[in-house]
């Protein structure tokens, strides 16, 4: 407050008629500067969301039609076979993806934490997939997993003629290729998060345990891993977010196929909105994605705030 009056001194010296207005404007400068961004974000977050909600309740098909039709698009969505395939896939994919990426990420972090040589090199290798787009990742893995060109043909050439690895083209196995590829993409990142956590554990605690004669596996189980508990939650939330939004990876890897076997909710939304002209049902599906994300993020946000406040109280 005191600072503001100091800032305004030059304006007071110039005796112009518009002075009070200018003065007020200068005082409001921070708010004015922020206003356009606020407006944009407000429109983006609230107006656009509200709009999509409205469309989901309307009669829109190929073109928007804003007359309300109630919840029947939601009912249609939930009775649709493709949608049930989509969310079943999402559940299957996200559980395996989260477990796999966390297991591999944690293993790598613990291995690297053993004071290995050339740590930076290992980390660079494990983390680079994250800089590559899902489109590139999916395309390359499609070649590797395709039975005619990839791993299956290589193993057969090596002499094992009956070797089979054709998950990519098998209806009930294709979703697992999405899991493999997703884990490839994300586990390095999980490694980096866990490694940062492992490094933050108080070394005196570990030393004390070593003096007490505990072996390393025990120390990890009993002391280090419990100490980085919050990081497990953070990693879980991040991975679930990735999983729920998964779209490009599946498009590039399987195109949602064979048939519709690897359809996920994000692909279903895209299809309904832009390929099949079923805007309202597409909007309803988009809202389901939004709700799924909220289901993950809202409790997490509340939990982090609660923890922060507790830390402040404890000092």
């Amino acid at each position, binding site marked *: 407050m005191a600072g503001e009056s100091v800032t305004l001194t030059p304006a007071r010296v110039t005796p112009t008629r518009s002075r009070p207005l200018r003065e007020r404007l200068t005082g409001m400068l921070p708010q004015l500067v922020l206003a356009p961004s606020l407006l944009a974000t407000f429109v983006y977050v609230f107006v656009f969301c509200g*709009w999509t909600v409205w469309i989901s309740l309307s009669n829109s098909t190929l073109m928007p039609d804003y007359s309300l039709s109630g919840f029947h698009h939601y009912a249609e969505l939930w009775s649709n076979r493709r949608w049930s395939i989509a969310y079943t896939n999402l559940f299957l994919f996200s559980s395996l993806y989260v477990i796999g990426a966390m297991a591999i990420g944690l293993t790598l972090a613990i291995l690297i934490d053993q004071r290995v040589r050339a740590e930076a090199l290992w980390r660079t290798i494990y983390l680079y997939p994250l800089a590559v787009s899902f489109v590139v990742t999916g395309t390359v893995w499609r070649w590797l997993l395709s039975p005619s060109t990839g791993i299956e043909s290589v193993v057969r050439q090596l002499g094992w003629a009956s070797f089979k690895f054709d998950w990519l083209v098998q209806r009930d196995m294709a979703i697992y290729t999405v899991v493999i590829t997703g884990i490839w993409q994300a586990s390095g990142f999980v490694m980096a998060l866990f490694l940062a956590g492992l490094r933050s554990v108080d070394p005196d605690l570990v030393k004390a345990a070593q003096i007490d004669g505990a072996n390393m596996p025990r120390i990890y189980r009993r002391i280090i891993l419990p100490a980085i508990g919050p990081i497990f939650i953070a990693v879980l939330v991040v991975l679930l977010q990735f999983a729920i939004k998964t779209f490009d990876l599946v498009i590039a890897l399987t195109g949602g196929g064979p048939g519709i076997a690897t359809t996920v909710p994000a692909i279903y939304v895209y299809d309904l909105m832009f390929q099949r002209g079923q805007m309202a049902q597409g909007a309803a599906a988009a809202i389901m*994605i939004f709700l799924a994300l909220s289901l993950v993020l809202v409790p997490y946000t509340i939990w982090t705030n609660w923890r922060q406040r507790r830390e402040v109280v404890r000092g």
Partner: protein
Amino acid sequence: MAETVAYDPLGSAGTWRRYRAKLVIYTLLGLFALYYLLPLVVVVLNSFRDLSDISRNGLINLPHSFSLDYWSLAWDKFCVGGTCAGIEPFFFNSVAMVVPATIISTAIGSINGYVLSKWRFAGSEVLFGLMTLGVFMPGQMVLLPWARVLGWLGLTNSTTGLVLIHCVQGLSFTTLFFRNYYVNIPDDLIKAARIDGAGFWRIFRKIVLPLSPPIVIVTVIWQFTNIWNEFLFAVIFSSGTHQPITAALIALSAGGTSVHQYNVESAAVLIAALPPLLVYFFGGRYFLRGLTQGAIK
């Protein structure tokens, strides 16, 4: 040096056991490295091999032939969706999208962060919370409204439209990054400058900006890689010759019934992946910092 290290995880074991443990560790690290590197090595090698070599010896094999032609074919001759100008026009579509979008969203984010950390006013914390909501918004929720708004603005199927989308969408991230960084600049520094008569913009230019390079690098890297790699908006709001490279790549490699030219496609894939990879290799530290902040906050 050894004394200053806090603990030696293997220190409690005997020499033989320690040796064996090291062997296990490095073997595992090596195997994982293989899993991560295999795709990259395969595409790099295939971008130099001729088609008969690939079809005879398979995609995953050492090259029996070598040529740089496929890179030039992929760059400006290969046919994508009807036009035979290679990946080059799409590459530059992406450049024309990512450069302005990154610069604008970073610049605005920086000013927003400055206001929200150093010029707080009644309700500014609430507004900050509101702005961070944008971080969580899934793309699917805004597709139909964006389609409409772009139509009204006459920006359908244009790079400018995508720049606008990425600016608005990125604003939440950049504001969050800068605000959380500027909060750590001591308020006394700002107060002293105000007493000296410096105003809003002067303090920003003379004090805040000179302290900003690390967070600017983090934000630019974050925005650049995200926008370059983005696919959903790219494929929906652009078509034909206006597509960014991610969308064009799908059109190219998933294209129809024609026989796959794996060598040219490999080169195209690498060209598409190269800009963010270079950013990663040269700015790795900042890349990771952005990632942890962007993903967790």
